[in-house]
C-alpha cells in the first residue's frame, strides 16, 4: 500500500507537478528565503565549491584506489631504522612481562589506530582512516585504509576486518573506549557480516593506554601517546598535524575536494602506529624492570599479581624495597605472607604498627593467633584494634583461649 503511494508520488514529482517552474533549485531558494526570515538573517550558508575526487586523493597520498572507492597505502619501516632511542626490528622478540600479552612474539600483534570525523561519538561519527601495523621480518609494515567516498565504507570495513582478526590480538592506544566500539558500531551500521563482527568482539585486545597509565599515571603529567613517545621512546615529532584538526581535513576534502592536508593526516596516523608498535616492547621492558624505567613499582607489581604472577611481583618489590613508600611496603609484606616468609613480613608489619598502622596490627594479631598460636601476643594486638564486631569477637575468642574473662589492659 505505502509502496504504491510512494510510486504515485514519485510519478507525480516526475510528471511536472512543478508546472509553475518550481524546479528543485526554486524549492531550495524558497526554503532559504523562509529560513533566513525565521532566523532574522543570521547564519548565512557558507559557499561550497569543488567535489571530492578519490583519484586525486589517491594520487595525493600515494596510495592505490580500489574500484569500490577506498584507498590503501602501504609503508615499510625497515628493520634497523632508528626511531628515537629505538630501532625497528626484533620481530621475533617475545613479550615477556606485559600482562595480557606474555609468551607471544610481537609479530603476532596487530596495531590499530583510526582517524575519525569527530570526537563526539554517536552514529554520525565515521572512521575515515583505519591504520594497522605489524612487525615483519623486513621491518614494520603499516597498512592504511582511507575512504575516498562514503559509499566505500562497507567495502573498506570488509577489507580491514580479516586483517584486524588475523593476528593473536589487537593493540591500541585508548581503543577500548574509542576506536574498537566505533568500529563495532560501523560494522553494525554497514551490515557487514555478523560472524565477522563477533570475531572482532572475541579477539584479544591490549590497550596500551591502560598499561602506560598504571606504570606512569602518578609520575607523568599525562599519559597521551605523544608524552609516551617523548619520555619512553625518546622521539619528538616535527610538523605533526594536531589530532584536533583531523576532522576538518576530512570535511575540506568532502566539501571542497581539497586534499592538501590529507597526506599530513596519514603521516600523523602512521606516526601513531609506529609509536604504538614500539611502545609494546618498550612497555614490556618497563614491566620487566620498572625501577630502571622510573615507573611506579607498586602499581606494576600489583598488576603482575593480578595476572597470576605473584613471584614476579615479589621480586620487583624486594629489588625496589629501599625506595618503597608505606603502601608499597605493605604490599611487599602481603607478598611475603603469601609465600610464607613470615619473619620479613612481620618485621614490616611491626615497623608499620609502631607508627599506628591498624592494618598491620590486625595482620599481626592474625599471625600470632593462627600461625604462632601465641594467644597472649595476639590479644595484645587485638585489643588495640578499632572497636567493632570483628575486633570484639577476636578479643573474646582469645580471652576464652587464655581462660580469662577479665578485660586485659596490656600496654605495648
Amino acid at each position, binding site marked *: 500500500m505505502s509502496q504504491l503511494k510512494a510510486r504515485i508520488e514519485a510519478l507525480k514529482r516526475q510528471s511536472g507537478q512543478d508546472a509553475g517552474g518550481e524546479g*528543485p533549485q526554486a524549492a531550495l531558494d524558497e*526554503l532559504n528565503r523562509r529560513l533566513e526570515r525565521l532566523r532574522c538573517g543570521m547564519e548565512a*550558508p*557558507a559557499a*561550497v565549491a569543488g567535489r571530492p575526487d578519490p583519484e586525486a586523493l589517491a594520487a595525493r597520498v600515494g596510495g592505490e584506489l580500489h574500484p569500490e572507492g577506498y584507498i590503501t597505502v602501504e609503508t615499510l619501516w625497515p628493520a634497523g631504522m632508528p626511531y628515537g632511542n629505538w630501532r625497528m626490528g626484533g620481530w621475533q622478540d617475545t613479550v615477556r612481562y606485559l600482562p595480557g600479552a606474555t609468551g607471544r612474539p610481537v609479530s603476532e600483534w596487530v596495531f590499530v589506530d583510526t582517524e575519525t*570525523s569527530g570526537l563526539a561519538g*554517536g552514529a*554520525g561519527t565515521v572512521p575515515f582512516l583505519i591504520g594497522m601495523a605489524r612487525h615483519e621480518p623486513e621491518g614494520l609494515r603499516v597498512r592504511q585504509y582511507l575512504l575516498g567516498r*562514503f559509499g566505500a565504507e562497507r567495502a573498506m570495513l570488509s577489507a580491514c576486518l580479516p586483517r584486524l582478526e588475523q593476528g593473536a590480538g589487537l593493540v591500541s592506544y585508548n581503543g577500548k573506549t574509542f576506536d574498537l*566500539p566505533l568500529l563495532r558500531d560501523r560494522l553494525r551500521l554497514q551490515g557487514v557480516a555478523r560472524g565477522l563482527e563477533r570475531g572482532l568482539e572475541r579477539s584479544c585486545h591490549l590497550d596500551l593506554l591502560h598499561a602506560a597509565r598504571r606504570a606512569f599515571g602518578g609520575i607523568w603529567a599525562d599519559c597521551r601517546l605523544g608524552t609516551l613517545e617523548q619520555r619512553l621512546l625518546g622521539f619528538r615529532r616535527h610538523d605533526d598535524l594536531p589530532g584536533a584538526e583531523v576532522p576538518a581535513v576530512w570535511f575540506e576534502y568532502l566539501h571542497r575536494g581539497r586534499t592538501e592536508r590529507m597526506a599530513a593526516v596519514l603521516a600523523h596516523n602512521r606516526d601513531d602506529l609506529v609509536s604504538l608498535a614500539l611502545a609494546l616492547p618498550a612497555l614490556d621492558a618497563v614491566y620487566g624492570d620498572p625501577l630502571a624505567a622510573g615507573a611506579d613499582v607498586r602499581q606494576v607489581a600489583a598488576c603482575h599479581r593480578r595476572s597470576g604472577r605473584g613471584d614476579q611481583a615479589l621480586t620487583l618489590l624486594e629489588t625496589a624495597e629501599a625506595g618503597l613508600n608505606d603502601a608499597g611496603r605493605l604490599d611487599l609484606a602481603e607478598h611475603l605472607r603469601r609465600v610464607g616468609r613470615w619473619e620479613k613480613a612481620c618485621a614490616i608489619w611491626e615497623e608499620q604498627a609502631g607508627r599506628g598502622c591498624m592494618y598491620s596490627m590486625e595482620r599481626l594479631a592474625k599471625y600470632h593467633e593462627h600461625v604462632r598460636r601465641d594467644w597472649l601476643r595476639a590479644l595484645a594486638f587485638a585489643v588495640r584494634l578499632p572497636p567493632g564486631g570483628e575486633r570484639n569477637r577476636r578479643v573474646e575468642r582469645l580471652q576464652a583461649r587464655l581462660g580469662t574473662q577479665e578485660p586485659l589492659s596490656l600496654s605495648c
Partner: protein
Amino acid sequence: MVEPAAIQSKPAQEDPVRSLSRRLKGKYGGRITGELRVSAREGCYAPFPDDLDARLRRGLEARGISRMYSHQRQAWDAVRAGRHTVVVTPTASGKTLCYNLPVLQDALEDGAKALYFFPTKALSQDQVAELMELNEAGGLGVRAYTFDGDTPGDARKAVRTRGDIVVTNPDMLHQGVLPHHTKWAQFFESLRYVVIDEMHTYRGVFGSHVANVVRRLRRVCRFYGADPVFILCSATIANPDELAAELIGEEVTTITDSGAPAGEKHLLLWNPPVVNADLGIRASARSQTTRIARLAVRSRLKTIIFARSRLMVEVLTKYLKDVFDGDPRKQPRVAAYRGGYLPTERRRTERSLRSGNLDCVISTSALELGVDIGSLDVCVLNGYPGTIAATWQRLGRAGRRERAALGVLVATSQPLDQYIVRNPDFFLGASPEHARIAPDQLLILLDHVRCAAFELPFRQGERFGGEDLEALLGYLEEQGVLHRESDQWHWTEDSYPANSVSLRSVAEGNFVVVDATDGGRRIIAEVDYSSAAETLYEGAIYMVQSSPYQVESLDWEGRKAYVRQTRVDYYTDAIDYTRLKILERFEGAAGRRAEATCGEVHLVRRIAGYKKIRYYTHENIGFGNIHLPDQEMHTTAVWWQIQPSSLKQAFASRQQALDGFLGAGYAMHHVAALRTMAEPHDLGRAVGDGDARWFATVGASGRGQMRSLDGGELDPEQEARFRPAVFLYDNYPGGVGLSAPLFEQRRAVTAGAREMIRACECEYGCPACVGPILASEEVRGFSPKMAAVSVLELLDDESAQGTH
C-alpha cells in the same frame, strides 16, 4: 463507655470535605457563582482475557485485582490485535495497566521489548516502582530500568542489553538513545511496544519536537527491522485521536469510556467580592485563595493550590507560611513546588506529601502531571488555568482515592476568569480543548532532520515530515552540514547535533541562577530562555521557596544570573514593549469599514523597565530601567484594522480611538485564547501600526500612549498616517500553528470580546473587560469601555463579506 460513644459519634462525623464545602457555601454564598457535584460512579468491569499469562494473573491477584476495568480490557484487545491505541480516561482510573499488561504478556511470551517515555524523570521513576511491584508479586522476572541523565555510566550497558522495559523521557531519547542507536541494536531489533504516557503534555512547541523525535525513533526502528505498536495515554482533551495520530504519524484506535469507579466531587466557582463598584475592582484572587486554604488546612484537610505563575506560587507560599510556619523549630507544613527548583528539592517535597508530613503545597502546572503525591482532599485554583482540560486535570489532584473531594476555582480579575465564573454553564458544560502541534514547523523540522541525518544517512525518496525533504537536505548541504553522494546525504560536521536542540523551546539555552551570597557559587534554579528577560534582569527580585534573592548581574551570553539573598518588602514586575512589522499577507477578509488579515510578521520585544510592588498593599513603590538586548522573532499573526474614514467618523479624537483599540485588544486576546483553545501565553498581543512606525501601550497614566520605535512618545493627532491595528500573534518563533485557527475564528473573537465587555457590570471599564482604567475617566466623561465596544462593532463589519 466506648460502645455508646462510638455509636453516637457516627452520625455527627460528617465527611470533613463535605463539611468544609457546606461551611464555605453558608458563609460565602454570595461569592459562589456556580456549583457542580459529580456523584460517585460505579465501576464497569470485564474478566481477564483467557490468554493472560498465568504468572501475570497471579501477580494481579496477589495485589487484589481479580478483574479488569472495561477500558483496560478494550485496550488489551486493541493492542493485542496490533493496533496503535490511545487511552483517554480520568486520573486514577488504572491507565497504567492498559499498557503494562500487553507489554508484560509479550515480554513473558517471547521476550518482546518495550520503550516507555514520560514527560519527566520523576514520572519515570514512579512507573518503574509500580512495574516492579507487579513483577515481584507475580514472580515475572521481567527487567524494567529507567534510563535518564541520572543513570550511572556503568549501569547503562546493562540497561541497553538486558532491559525488557526501558523507561525514559523524550529528551533522553532525543539526546542519549537515538544518536547512539548502534549501541541499542539488540534492543531495537526486539522492540515491539512504545508507550507514551501523559500524551496531552506533548502539545505546542514541546509536542512538535516530540512528534519529530518519534519520527526519528520509527526511522531507526525500521533500520533494525522493527515496527513497534504505540500505546498512548492521555488526560481528557478534545482531540486525543488526532493528537496521537500526529505524534506517531499513523491512525490510532481511541478508547475513551472509563470503567473505573470514582468518588464524589464538589466544585465551586468563586468570584471575589467587589470592593470598588465604580471601577469594578474586586478583592484579589490571592486573598480569597489564602482564606480558603487556611480554612481547609485548619480542618486538617490536605490541600493543594495551583497558581498560574512562579511568582504567584512564591507570593502565596509566603502568605501561608506566615500563617502556618511561624515556628522555625517545627517541621514546615507548607511548601512550594515549581519548575526551576532543583530535582532533589522537588523529590523531597513529593516524599513529604506522600507521607502526609505536609498539609499544603502551592504549585504551578508542574504538579498537574501524574507525579505520585498521594491523596489530597482539597484543590484550590488561584485563577483559571487557561484551558478547560488543564482545569480538570488540576482538580483531579484532589480525591484520587475513592473519597469525597472539593475543588474551588477562584477567579482573578482577568477577563477570561470573569467570563468563566459569570457564565458557569459555559465552563461546566464545555468540552475540553484541542491539543495542537505543528511538527512541520520549519525550524523544528530542520533541527530534527539534522539529528536524523546524524543517526542514519538520508536516502533519496525517503520521507520525513510534511515539507520537501530534499530541499531541506539541500539546504543543509549548502551549509556544509551534509554531504551528498549519489542518492544519500551523509553527516559531515564534527558535532553532536542533538546536544544543540532543546525539545522544550524553539530558542536555545536555559539560564542558571547562581547564588553568590557570601562569595558562593551555588546554582539554585534554572530559567528557560524565553522567560529569562522578564525574570532575571538586574535588580529583579527572584524568589525561591518564598525567599527573595536580588539579581546583581546578568550574563546574557553566558546564560547566568548572579543573585544574592536579600530582605525586601517588595517584588518586581517587568514592563515590556512590543512592536511589529507586517512581512507577508497569507489571507484576508475585508468589509466596507474593516478588515482582518492573517500573515507573517516581524516582532521586536523590549523589556524596558520594571515596577517594584510592595507586599500586601500592592502599591507601586518605584521603577527601574532594564538594559537587555531586544528579542526578535518572526511569527504568524492575525490583525484587525478599520478604514481611516470609518475611524474618523466614529471617534471624536485619535486618542480615544487608540484607547478603544487597546481596550478591544485586551478583551480580544482573552477571548482568542479561549476560542483557539490555546493557553493565554501562547498568544501575544500588540496594538500598533502595521509598518512598525509606531506602537501603543498603556502608559503609567492609564491612558494609551503612542510611541516611536525608540520609545519616545508621539502625538496621535500629529501623525500623517493613523491606521491602528490589533495584532494577536503566535508567541513562538516561526509560529506553532495557532494563527490559522485564530483567523478562522476571527468573527467569534470580535463578537465574543464585544459581548464580554457589554456584559461586564462596570461602568467605564475595568480589568475584567478592557483592562485597568483610571479613576479620573469618570470625571473626564469618557468611557474606555464604550470606545472599545465601538472599535469592536466596526471590526465586526468584515464578517458579512467573503474572504479575498
